[in-house]
């Protein structure tokens, strides 16, 4: 019989990098890209199950799409207790959003400093090739130095949006299996 894990996936990053677009494109299986910008106030939660390959298990992703505007920072932090995994998003055409990534990651990790939280660094808007200022190399380096996995996507083109979610669901599933083995070994 299948096991269903529950995974709290917090999405953070500066305002307008495309966090909500990414969440909504993933959630709708690529059928919905919000064409008009609406600023997220507080946190929006979306739920989506992900099947784990080669098993009958699935991971229910509780996606916490958090406001990026600094004015909401105290408010959104209250929703971040016990994060399971994190996605830090930046806009590859914005230097500022890239340099904020560290700050966002620290905010999440300070929630539970002793717990290992699988994470992804995600460059969005890669369709805007001409305006790109952050190279894949720079992205990869930042990811590596912060123990994140690096991904690139275009929510607008619905390109590669699912990959970081699948990666994190798999990592979370792996963690679960490791922990169950540990529990088993305790007696």
């Amino acid at each position, binding site marked *: 019989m299948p*096991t269903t894990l529950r995974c709290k996936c917090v999405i953070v990053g500066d305002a307008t990098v495309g966090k909500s677009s990414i969440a909504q494109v993933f959630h709708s299986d690529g059928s919905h890209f919000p064409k008009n910008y609406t600023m997220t106030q507080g946190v929006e939660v979306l739920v989506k199950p992900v099947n784990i390959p080669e098993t009958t298990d699935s991971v229910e992703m509780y996606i916490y799409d958090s406001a990026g505007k600094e004015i909401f920072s105290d408010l959104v932090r209250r929703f971040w207790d016990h994060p399971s995994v994190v996605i830090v998003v930046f806009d590859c055409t914005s230097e500022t959003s890239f340099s904020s990534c560290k700050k966002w990651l620290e905010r999440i990790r300070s929630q539970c400093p002793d717990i290992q939280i699988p994470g992804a660094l995600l460059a969005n808007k890669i369709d805007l090739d001409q305006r790109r200022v952050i190279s894949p190399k720079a992205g990869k380096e930042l990811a590596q130095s912060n123990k994140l996995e690096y991904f690139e996507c275009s929510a607008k083109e619905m390109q590669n949006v699912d990959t970081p979610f699948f990666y994190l669901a798999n990592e979370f599933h792996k963690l*679960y299996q490791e922990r*169950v083995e*540990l529990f088993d070994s305790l007696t």
Partner: protein
Amino acid sequence: MLARLLQPEAKFVKPVLTLLCHHKWTMFDVALSSAGAHIALATSSDEKHPPENMIDGKAETFWSTTGMFPQEVVIRFQTMMKITNVHICSYNIRKLKLEASEMDESTKYDTIAETEIDETDSQLQQEEIQLGEKRAYSLRLVIESGYDHFVSVHKVVVSGQAVHQ
């Protein structure tokens, strides 16, 4: 089982009672499935590690939570019980709350204990919670937070006895 122990002649009764005081929970474990208790609800379900494992009397089997907090489990006793303490063998639990309900099928629970359990390294947490004397038809364990994403509960032993109405 208790009845059988108390049946022998008076001269045997005293040592038996001393034994009961020292090993109260093994003698009066009203949460055992073999004593008629059952799991009425659990917020996680991995069929390989079901919640029933908490009340089968074995420490080797366990219930595993499958992600996120809080996590809850409700143990329903066979009948109304007077419970005096709860012993929990677990791993990675941080904040734990115990709630009791005096009604069958009730949704009204009163908090009877709240505790923060110390982290253990590669051995089980053993937490003994004294309750005084509380009436309970069912006991709800709320795991509010943990030291990791997942926690395990190996044993829940509830000392008590049936209330004769």
